[in-house]
């Protein structure tokens, strides 16, 4: 089944629970019980004054929120506008307030019934920064405090799946503030692995038995995807990337997905966001798709980024949320849609033609995917179908059509010249 949504963010999905949101509305769908709950969070001015206009929603950051679902305890916590809510059925209960609006998307951690999340705000005056925790009795407290001036904010907290008590914390943003920390005793002691420079500015981390893997979010230098040996502490560059790496998710089989972000800075050399896939715990990466940044200025209308849902046992079930990127901003789609694209789909497109696509968003997604396949494999049949798909884009997008067509033909010419 083709799965994608317009104007929704998918926060969590497993075989039973599906949680998506739009603005202050959060929808919890229990697929096993065929039950759907709609939570309406408190109205907040000006961010909810958007009249459902997508560009206004973006400007006002009306979608920003963190949804935390613990599938063991079935506890659901939502953080929006600095307020931490516990959701019970269709009602919410305020657990307390935090500094900042909400933690970075899906970068929280659940460990032994405790929920941990970090403060994520501008913090220009470099005040104290907190790691918060919600215990089994739903008490919101501070788990750890970074001293004033130590860091700007927290990027992520993650449980190490290979070490029982270990939690990892990443922070940013400037040189001296980029820490790659771990704790084995619930924040009683905390150790740093890196040199605190932007080379260690990391958002999400992936794990294998012998090493960590991650991409850097360096704004002053070129970024890389790394593996970081647990024993020696040495790290190895796997792949240079042309933008900053933010979000990363993995499953137990070694499959991992990493998204890059278009931002301002020397670390961002191109105007598109990429999604990389690894089948071997980050040892090698394959670029699945490049989605160009849209025309709206950054950071006023957000950076161009992709983020991922939590909860998927199999990575193919994961959802990708797109923000600030051309044709797809504000939409979300299932990873399977782009990973499963094969010769058989080429045949289906040739047979079904336009009927293969459910809407323009689907068409654009496949155009970007095929462009990447063609770029990587140089199989001319993909160029052929790509040119046909470009023809099927709406007439009003004639400028984009021409750009895409030229880009596709340029790839052909360059590969043709090299093969000659």
């Amino acid at each position, binding site marked *: 089944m083709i799965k994608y949504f317009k104007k929704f963010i998918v926060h969590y999905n497993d075989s039973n629970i599906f949680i998506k949101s739009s603005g202050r509305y959060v929808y919890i769908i229990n697929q096993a019980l065929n039950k759907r709950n709609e939570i309406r969070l408190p109205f907040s001015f000006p961010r909810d004054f958007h009249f459902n206009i997508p560009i206004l929603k973006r400007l006002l950051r009306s979608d920003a929120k963190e949804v935390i679902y613990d599938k063991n305890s079935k506890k659901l916590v939502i953080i929006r506008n600095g307020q931490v809510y516990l959701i019970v059925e269709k009602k919410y209960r305020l657990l307390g307030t935090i500094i900042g609006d909400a933690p970075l998307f899906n970068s929280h951690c659940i460990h032994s019934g405790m929920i941990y999340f970090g403060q994520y705000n501008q913090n220009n005056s470099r005040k104290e920064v907190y790691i918060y925790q919600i215990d089994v009795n739903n008490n919101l407290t501070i788990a750890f405090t970074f001293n004033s001036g130590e860091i700007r904010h927290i990027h992520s907290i993650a449980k190490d799946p290979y070490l029982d008590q270990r939690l990892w914390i990443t922070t940013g943003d400037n040189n001296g503030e980029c820490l790659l920390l771990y704790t084995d005793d619930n924040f009683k002691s905390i150790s740093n692995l890196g040199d605190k420079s932007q080379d260690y500015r990391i958002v999400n981390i992936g794990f294998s038995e012998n090493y960590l893997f991650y991409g850097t979010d360096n704004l002053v230098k070129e970024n890389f995807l790394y593996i970081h040996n647990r024993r020696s502490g040495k790290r190895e560059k796997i792949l240079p990337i042309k933008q900053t790496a933010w979000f990363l998710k993995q499953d137990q089989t070694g499959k991992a997905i990493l998204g890059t972000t278009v931002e301002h800075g020397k670390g961002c050399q191109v105007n598109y966001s990429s999604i990389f896939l690894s089948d071997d715990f980050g040892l090698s990466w394959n670029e699945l798709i490049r989605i160009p940044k849209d025309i709206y200025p950054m950071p006023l209308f957000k950076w161009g980024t992709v983020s991922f849902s939590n909860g998927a046992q199999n990575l193919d079930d994961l959802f990708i949320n797109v923000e600030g990127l051309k044709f797809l901003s504000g939409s979300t789609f299932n990873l399977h849609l782009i990973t499963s694209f094969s010769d058989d789909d080429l045949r289906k497109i040739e047979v079904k033609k336009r009927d293969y696509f459910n809407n323009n968003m689907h068409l654009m997604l496949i155009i970007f995917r095929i462009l990447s396949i063609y770029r990587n494999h140089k199989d001319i*049949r993909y160029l*052929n179908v790509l*040119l046909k798909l470009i023809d099927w884009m709406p007439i009003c997008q004639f400028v984009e059509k021409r750009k895409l*067509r030229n880009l596709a033909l340029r790839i052909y010419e360059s590969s043709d010249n090299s093969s*000659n």
Partner: protein
Amino acid sequence: MRVLIIAPTNFQSYATTILVKLIEDPNIEVVGVLIHKFTFRRIKNEFKRDGKRIFTKVFNKAILSEKKSLNYSFQTPKKILENFGIKADLKEICKEHNLYFKEVSLFNSSKLSKELSELKLDIGAFCGGGLLRDNFLNSFSFGVLNCHMGILPHYRGMDVVEWPFLENDKFNVGVTCHLMDKGIDTGDILEIVKVNPVKFHNFTELREYLSGVMYDLMLKNIASISLGDFEKSKQLESDGKQYFVMHPLLKKIAIKKYN
């Protein structure tokens, strides 16, 4: 050997030439001709597959190339018919020789398969008309032969005269005689004839030449099969790729490369 000719239209020169030649062959028993009827559904499907180019294709085939092909120095099905003084009209020829003739809207109906089974057919000579399914193919004791205007297993599907030029593989142009199966050009290969495209001026001329090769190859292989003197080689799905209708921009590049 009991042979049935399967044709896309009643007026196809290629099928007519094969029919006329097979009638002359004392070792072959021509049972008749099966035509894919022009129905609204067929036109719709072909339009869906080929798009607007279906009109130019019909125009080029029916009007332009009809005249052009007579001017070529090499043999084409149209030239052969012209030399024989025969008009491409399968129905008329079948009537004249008292052969089986049927126009069907669907090749793959169980009713037709049953009817064909009763005709006790050995070989089908496929000259076009759409995809064939297992129940149709199983009506022939040996199988259905197709002469594909491309080199198998590398170039399956559509526009495979032009695709080798874009793949920088222009000497892989020719015709393959193969047995049909339910896949697209994936059946056992009987014979391959490669053609040097440098000898021709453009794709139209090359295609016309290849249509003459197809005709020769079809007759030659039917004769070989009837004498039991043939070899067939299997092809794996992974041995080649399926190509589709070429986008006009790529066609332009292919033409440029030809020149």
